[in-house]
């Protein structure tokens, strides 16, 4: 159908069209990602400009066994545990409640979606302001704010989590609403006709059918949570974050790039964090795969 020359010119065209995206993705994602695996073998030079010293794998193991890394890991883990399960649950409940042909649902949908489009900076400022003891809200609610929440080693992580949770509810709600819409209507109807109570239908029909979505939302939430640091940066800052146990791993990467530059350690943490997310992502794939097999 095509001559050799045509085919060759088509190949050239095809590659030209891919080139811009390919170059950008290679330069700004693939290359820097793989660069981590050479950076992490070197100590940062004592002064900028001096050559880096070979460290071998020891730097990686030193880093991931350091107190600050373990603190960061703990902060990240606690944050994730605080945000994701509750966010998934609330998103699910709200989306199920909104998944009815009742008046005013569109308004509720819009309201819940607002949090998903709010930036972390906006969310942090909105919540952070009211956590400020100078303002009247918390004392009025009878919450003791001395030391202030953001300076409290026990409660700071909860403050961070509330901000993350508020943002995550919107996304969770949107994803569940879409998941519910893709469910076969007849199955839910059938459960109703069989006389199942709404609660029973919810647990025996909706939840199982929605389980892939639940897992997906969970994964999305966990991955987002693992990279959280915006509210820590905006409300607490690199200096104090460690003192109040909110110095998440993502925030530490940032610090090792900017506030105390150390590419080797930054690369080590990046690799560790990547491995953690890869595990979550793979678990997600495995789960979805199994579900597909089960379905067919």
């Amino acid at each position, binding site marked *: *159908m*095509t*001559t050799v020359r*045509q085919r060759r010119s088509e190949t050239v065209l095809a590659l030209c069209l891919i080139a811009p995206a390919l170059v950008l993705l290679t330069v700004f994602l693939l290359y820097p990602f793989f660069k981590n695996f050479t950076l992490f073998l070197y100590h940062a030079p004592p002064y900028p400009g001096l050559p880096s010293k070979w460290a071998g794998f020891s730097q990686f193991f030193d880093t991931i066994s350091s107190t600050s890394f373990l603190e960061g890991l703990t902060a990240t883990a606690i944050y994730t545990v605080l945000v994701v399960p509750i966010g998934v649950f609330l998103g699910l409940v709200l989306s199920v409640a909104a998944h009815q042909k009742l008046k005013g649902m569109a308004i509720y949908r819009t309201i819940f979606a607002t949090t998903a489009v709010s930036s972390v900076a906006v969310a942090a400022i909105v919540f952070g302001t009211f956590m400020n003891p100078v303002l009247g809200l918390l004392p009025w609610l009878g919450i003791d704010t001395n030391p202030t929440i953001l300076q409290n080693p026990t409660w700071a992580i909860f403050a961070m989590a509330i901000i993350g949770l508020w943002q995550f509810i919107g996304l969770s709600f949107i994803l569940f609403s879409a998941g519910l819409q893709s469910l076969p209507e007849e199955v839910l109807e059938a459960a109703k006709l069989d006389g199942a109570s709404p609660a029973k239908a919810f647990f025996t029909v909706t939840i199982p059918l929605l389980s892939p979505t639940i897992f997906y939302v969970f994964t999305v939430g966990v991955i987002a949570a693992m990279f959280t640091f915006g509210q820590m940066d905006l409300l607490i800052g690199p200096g104090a974050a460690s003192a109040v146990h909110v110095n998440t791993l993502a925030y530490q990467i940032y610090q090792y790039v900017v506030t105390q530059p150390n590419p080797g350690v930054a690369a080590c943490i990046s690799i560790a964090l990547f491995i953690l997310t890869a595990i979550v992502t793979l678990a997600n794939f495995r789960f979805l795969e199994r579900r597909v097999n089960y379905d067919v």
Partner: protein
Amino acid sequence: MASVAFNHVTKKFGDTSVLNGLDLEVADGEFLVLLGPSGCGKTTALRMVAGLESPTTGTVAIGGSVVNDVAPQHRDVAMVFQNYALYPHLSVAKNIEFPLRQRDISADIRAQKVRDVAQMLGLAELLDRKPRQLSGGQRQRVALARAIVREPVCFLMDEPLSNLDATLRARTRSEIVRLQHELATTTIFVTHDQVEAMTMGDRIAVLNAGDLQQVGTPTELFENPANAFVAGFIGNPGMSLLSANASQGQLAIGGTQTPFSASGLNGAVTIGVRIDGVELSSSGIAAICDGVEVLGAEVHVLAHLGDDQIIVRQGASAPRPKIGEQIFIQLTTEPLYFDAVTGLRVSQ
């Protein structure tokens, strides 16, 4: 305007052979129908003329010159796809105009041509609509218009009527034939519907499992099928094919003698009988009734003898056999004879 020729064209997709050495000539201005059951390679053959598929071996020629290495856009053929392939985002007018826009034609002339073709096909009122706002028949006409407006050397149509309802299909059949005669453009029309083939084609090429069975006018195919496949495929209904036995100038079916001599034949033979060559009778060849189709003025009785199916016509008022009941059949005209093994017509 141009002739189209397949010269010993084969086509393989991987290991599966779809066409086995197709030799076929379509004369300039001819309306040729490519007929065959599903999966026999009709679309593949058509797409090779368009250049969307290339032959594994052999050549395709348009207007006498081999086009194997000519890109589709340079072959100057127009195709009407089964599902029309209209551009959903363009209005009817823009759809028809689309092929013209790819050429050096001034806007005035383009608009004029679109108007003319739309007029010809009764689309003048619909020019501003989008395809989704059209009925199936209207879409079909837009697809035709888009092909016609190009004034190509050849129309290729792949089952363009199969998405229409029965009434519309019948009407559109004659409309396409009329247009083709007016334009006198070589047309290859693919279908698996033998009624379409019989009513539309100047000639019909019957294809089965990648092999060309017979090429001829509808009458030739109907009266002189070259083999048992064509006999069974052509006609409404096709011929009933029965295994029979000839010995000593006597044709016997299922052990029952018939008045025909099958002269010159000996041993197992396949016979083909048209529906008007048999009748029910009180004695004769025994068969078991499988069902009765009431078609208004006449009734078709479906029956089987051994593994063979047969259809017999009956008047509307005659008593109808029940399913499972034994009936008797007699041949009233001499059947056609086919080789029991190869299926080829045995001339007497």
